């Protein structure tokens, strides 16, 4: 019976992974709220039209690449190929940080084009939406740091894969989220 008890009580990653999915769901609802507000507000008229910064196209490529390297890293982790997993993680981290820097440059490009945060709501929305997405990127980068720390500290393979899975689920989510937001902003101007 002791073995039964242990079996019931051993570390089960499923509920925790599920918690992450639910967090993603609530995050989706927040952005759905924002983009719906965007459409409702746009329909009322008095809406300034401007071009999105060109660097957003480059950052979109960066985050797509980072998703690919993240996927590579998880695959290597599952093959117990720690060195290659590290390379994949570092690459994803650098690409992610590059994305964040690029978004910031995008804001500066907007300012140079006289599109200010305090102005017409159409302008403010671009800052708010990309800014909140940026906050998600920061969270994703922190998850990567925790996965990296795990790798260097040689945590058990089960836990390593668990951390990698959490990180990659979240990272792919914010990748897809950005593509949705970018396409949304491009279409609804």
């Amino acid at each position, binding site marked *: *019976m002791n073995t039964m*008890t242990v079996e019931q*009580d051993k570390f089960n990653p499923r509920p925790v992974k599920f918690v992450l999915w639910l967090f993603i769901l609530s995050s989706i*609802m927040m952005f759905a709220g924002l983009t719906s507000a965007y459409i409702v507000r746009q329909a009322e008229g008095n809406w300034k039209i401007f071009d999105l910064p060109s660097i957003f196209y480059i950052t979109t490529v960066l985050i797509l690449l980072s998703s690919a390297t993240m996927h590579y890293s998880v695959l290597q982790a599952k093959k117990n190929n720690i060195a290659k997993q590290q390379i994949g993680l570092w690459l994803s981290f650098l690409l992610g940080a590059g994305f964040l820097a690029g978004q910031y440059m995008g804001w500066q490009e907007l300012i140079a084009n006289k599109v200010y*945060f305090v*102005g*017409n709501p159409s302008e403010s929305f671009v800052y708010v939406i990309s800014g909140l997405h940026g906050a998600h990127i920061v969270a994703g980068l922190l998850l990567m740091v925790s996965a990296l720390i795990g790798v260097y500290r040689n945590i058990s393979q089960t836990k390593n894969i668990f951390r990698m899975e959490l990180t990659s689920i979240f990272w792919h989510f914010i990748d897809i989220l950005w593509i949705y937001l970018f396409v949304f902003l491009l279409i609804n101007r």
Partner: protein
Amino acid sequence: MSTQALDHTDVHAHSDHHEHHPETFWSKYVFSMDHKMIAKQFLITGIIMAIIGMVLSVLFRIQLGWPEESFPFLERILGKWAKDGRIDPSFYMSMVTIHGTIMVFFVLTAGLSGTFSNLLIPLQVGARDMASPFINMLSYWFFFTASVIMTYSLMIETGPASGGWTIYPPLSALPKAMPGSGLGMTLWLLSMGLFVASSLMGGINYISTVLNMRTKGMAMTKMPLTIWAFFLTAVLGVLSFPVLLAGVILLIFDRSFGTSFYLSDIYIGGEALPNHGGSPVLFQHLFWFLGHPEVYIIIMPALGITSEIIATNARKPIFGYRAMIMSLIGIAFLSFIVWGHHMFVTGMNPFLGSVFMFTTLIIAVPSAVKTFNYLATLWKGNIQFTPAMMFSMGLVSLFISGGLTGIFLGNAALDINLHDTYFVVAHFHIVMGSSAMFGMFAGVYHWYPKMFGRMMDARLGYFHFWLTFIAVYCVFFPMHFIGLDGVPRRYYAFTSFEFMNEWLVVNQFISIAAIIGSLAQFIFLYNFFRSIFKGEKATQNPWKSNTLEWTTPVEHIHGNWPGEIPSVYRWPYDYSKPGHDEDFIPQTTPYSETISSNIPTDFGIHEEPVKAEEKSN
């Protein structure tokens, strides 16, 4: 019963497994990660917040009942907010706002869901604890911090937020709009930000626990209705609170950074503000997209608790178990597509209004299903009139009387007349406020033995019930007539308007009833706190109930069950089953032990018990 009759030699091995570190005062009572302790923390914080909310309501009832008189004792309590014993008009607005905020969010959302979801989800589905005990602890501490900030905002120089609990801009967006729009509103936003984070963490945990950590045999269709209600409540919270967050983020940018999401063409003191191009109605859309599911977040746990208590105390299976689940799902789904009925008079396109009216009135169907099922469960039951049962039946009564006025208000044409009158105040205080409060009382009386290992005094319970029940009807029923006459809510004094003067007597009656009702709550408080220390010791299963929480020992242990978690073989409502020697059969009893009472449908509808039975043999 093989699973229950475990040898207790395993206890030590087990507790070692769970408690690697010695429990200190801090880890046991303060930063506890045990769901049972967190439930008690939520309950007691909720009770304290409820007292604050209740005191505020008594204070503004005094103003409404006797608008011309002065009460020197008020000046002693409120200081400059009641100069010469008369409440300051702007503080009146603050009290109404904070009363609403505290009652809706802090008491009936966190106090109700936080307490009973935390207590019952792991115990009734058969889990050692929540999916993430750490996030669960964080959830409580965010809530606690939010409560402290909200209470603190009552004491600041400029007064707390005062634009109503719905914080419509521009009152909430312009710090200069009214006294409470400054620091008070900032604190409100800060507090509610923490509150939303707390709710999300709690809700995510509840969902994950229900879906992933049910014990062996606990199919979704064998869960008690309480769990179904808590589960769907959490789903509503996870889907709707982020939208409020989005709306509030935009509001914060408007307030503090000068954006114009909600502001346009506003003049203060003859001077135009720079804000241009915003839409205040946009905020209402975002707010009510949360706001409407929020009222179901409040009532659904109360309905779940009532289902469980009514079945247990009528000693009858719940009538229409699957219909109860379907109606909960129906209410949950519909709650997302009715928010427009709060905005019929915002200049909404009448066609859109009729769509929202249609979806709103459809909610009457699942609500009626629930009501009739409660009545059918009570019908010819062997009713045990425990205090919990009284409060549950009180909920059914209030849910019916409050629900009927909902049909009036859901009608877009009638709403033009009734909008923002006392009719609305009467409606939601009965159907959502008092009903949910009754559900909470019922839950406290019923699960008190599980929480504190002692019983509450039943006599005081009955006394508390009757006083509260009569007071609630005396307070809110006359308000319907005031509202039908067109008296608007949130007004400081009725005496300034000719046509409202005649309602002064009624208002005095309401105020007296409210004061008596409030005093009655002290009976509850005395009973609650006294019984923690001096109550009669509880037995393991005092209500002869079927659900899993009553198979745990009275003394709380971390991990809930010593040894193995019991398996489940049957649904939770086998009460008074013909052929069985007792009038209840716990979920842990396999069919092989109840040959005399088994009927074909036990095996025809659910197939799993047959397999489970084979295994246990």
